[in-house]
């Protein structure tokens, strides 16, 4: 978190990571420039493709996730798009967990459809559903370590074995867990995605995303990575770059062509957050646990869905993959006095003084949202139910405040809602 990816430079020796706020880089010579464009040298051409500040973030994330490398991009959604655009061709299919962030569901359902890519949705807890959904056109399995918004836990190990048996990569979004709580690559995942906007940055000031890859997947029979690339004179990325092939293709083709690059300033701010990831995550999960216990005992609360609780259906998985500490984002339902859960949820949010009502998670400050009217509102009722989002569901992202202050705020808002 503090050292990987950054060695103080030989001239200035700046200890903090310098911000290379530049669009482009002067070439050494015409020959060297040509070799950079042919990918025969590692180096910097243009910040849309690579930047030295961003490279520190990339190597540090790769190191934390036990990956072979990473590509940082403009947002989590951009990371997901670039990861899949590199893997897929029109007509390909993916099998995805139905318990995903609403924006992800929208991207996979609607934007991917325009690209003739089909998504098969499965109940993430049922391995046989995953298996049944795989066809000869399936090119990846996709899920979230901790599902948004209900906090279900993905059973990574058998899923990775299933993907392996079909010679396709398991793609895992690890945003809610962060590599501090879980490293999916250690359980067999091939590609790990992050919205670095969340706990990685941790201060709610920068949007960013990243793609990390394990370097252990055999792409030799995977068409998009193994076949000659028409945009690089027939270059075969897997044959030429080996375990770096996938990531080189993400960077040099997909991100180059789609343009969702990270700003160097944001890379610096995300790095600043990353330096304290372990300290913050300890506090996030401790505060989350205190809030969960408080809500469980509260007479105005109908239910709490947190996989750290023994009666949660995925408690055993939370213990296996996350040491029993499944992050700081979870959902609960308000007991509505007249049965109108939707109205009770809205009222509760209006009464809160300290929790910020906004569409984000993983900030240093505690956050609250009512998904049915915000993040998941583009979804149809059917999609909403499939994602496990009830009308009275409130999602909390527990921050770093003094625990007692958070409990006070929740208590007064719950009581006001019940009056």
């Amino acid at each position, binding site marked *: 978190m503090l050292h990987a990816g950054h060695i103080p430079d*030989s001239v200035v020796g700046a200890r903090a990571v310098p911000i290379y706020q530049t669009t482009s880089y002067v070439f050494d010579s015409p020959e060297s420039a040509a070799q950079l464009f042919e990918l025969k040298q590692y180096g910097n051409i243009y910040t849309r493709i690579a930047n*030295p500040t961003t490279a520190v973030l990339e190597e540090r994330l790769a190191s934390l996730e036990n990956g072979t490398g990473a590509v940082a991009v403009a947002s989590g959604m951009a990371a997901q798009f670039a990861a899949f655009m590199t893997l897929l061709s029109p007509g390909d299919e993916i099998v995805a967990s139905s318990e995903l962030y609403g924006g992800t569901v929208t991207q996979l359902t609607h934007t991917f459809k325009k690209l003739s890519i089909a998504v098969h949705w499965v109940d993430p807890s049922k391995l046989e559903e995953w298996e049944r959904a795989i066809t000869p056109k399936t090119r990846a399995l996709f899920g979230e370590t901790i599902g948004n918004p209900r906090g279900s836990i993905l059973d990574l190990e058998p899923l990775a074995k299933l993907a392996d048996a079909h010679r396709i990569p398991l793609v895992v979004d690890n945003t809610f867990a962060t590599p501090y709580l879980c490293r999916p690559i250690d359980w067999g995942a091939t590609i790990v995605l992050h919205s670095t906007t969340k706990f990685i940055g941790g201060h709610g000031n920068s949007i960013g995303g990243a793609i990390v890859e394990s370097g252990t997947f055999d792409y030799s029979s995977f068409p998009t990575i193994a076949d000659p690339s028409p945009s690089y004179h027939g270059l075969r990325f897997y*044959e030429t*770059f080996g375990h770096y092939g996938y990531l080189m293709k993400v960077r040099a083709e997909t991100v180059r062509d789609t343009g969702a690059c990270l700003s160097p300033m944001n890379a610096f701010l995300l790095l600043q957050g990353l330096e304290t990831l372990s300290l913050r995550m300890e506090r996030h999960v401790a505060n989350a646990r205190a809030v969960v216990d408080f809500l469980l005992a509260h007479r105005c609360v109908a239910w709490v869905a947190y996989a750290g609780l023994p009666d949660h259906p995925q408690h055993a998985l939370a213990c296996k993959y996350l040491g029993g500490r499944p992050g700081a984002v979870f959902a609960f339902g308000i007991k509505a006095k007249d049965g109108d859960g939707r109205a009770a949820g809205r009222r509760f949010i209006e009464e809160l003084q300290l929790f910020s009502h906004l569409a984000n998670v993983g900030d240093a400050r505690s956050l609250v949202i009512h998904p049915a009217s915000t993040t998941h509102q583009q979804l149809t009722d059917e999609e909403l139910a499939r994602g496990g989002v009830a009308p009275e569901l409130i999602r909390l992202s527990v921050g770093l405040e003094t625990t007692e202050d958070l409990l006070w705020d929740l208590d007064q808002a719950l009581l006001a809602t019940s009056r």
Partner: protein
Amino acid sequence: MGSGPGVACDITLNTELTADQRRRFQNVDTIRRLLRESHTIAIVGLSSDPQKASSFVATYLQAAGYRIVPVTPRSGVILGERTYPDLASVPLPIDLVVVFRPGRECVRVAEQAIAAGIKAIWFQLRIQALEAAELAQQAGLTVVLDKCIKMEHGRFSGSLHWAGMNTEIISARKAVGSAAR
């Protein structure tokens, strides 16, 4: 940027070798010494196709200041250098042999290197050449196995880092110019 003078991290990613084999054939200090002290590098199996991995590696090494000597049955000139059919016919002193041949041909290449009195041999990433590596090491050669010389040079010179890759190098010391050379 360079990786600083005091790097002693074990590099564990992206190899199929056991910990003991890594110690014998992927020693970090040995790799850095070979990169630093070698000047003329014979490349066995260098392709004339500019999109082949061997051509990427040779181009990189030339730009990094090494003289490369192509060893291939095809006579002619590759990347501005005259080709030779085997190591025995190379008239120049060779510091290091880099091998881009299938595993089954590697013992023969190792025997040629031993016969030519060459002091170091490097079998590229994913080449199954354990027998050849053992043979060469027993004959007193310095041996690297299952590593890419371009990736390793990039790792220690700092440029691999620019590609967002995990170099596995941790150092709080100031970098030294270009550490590999």
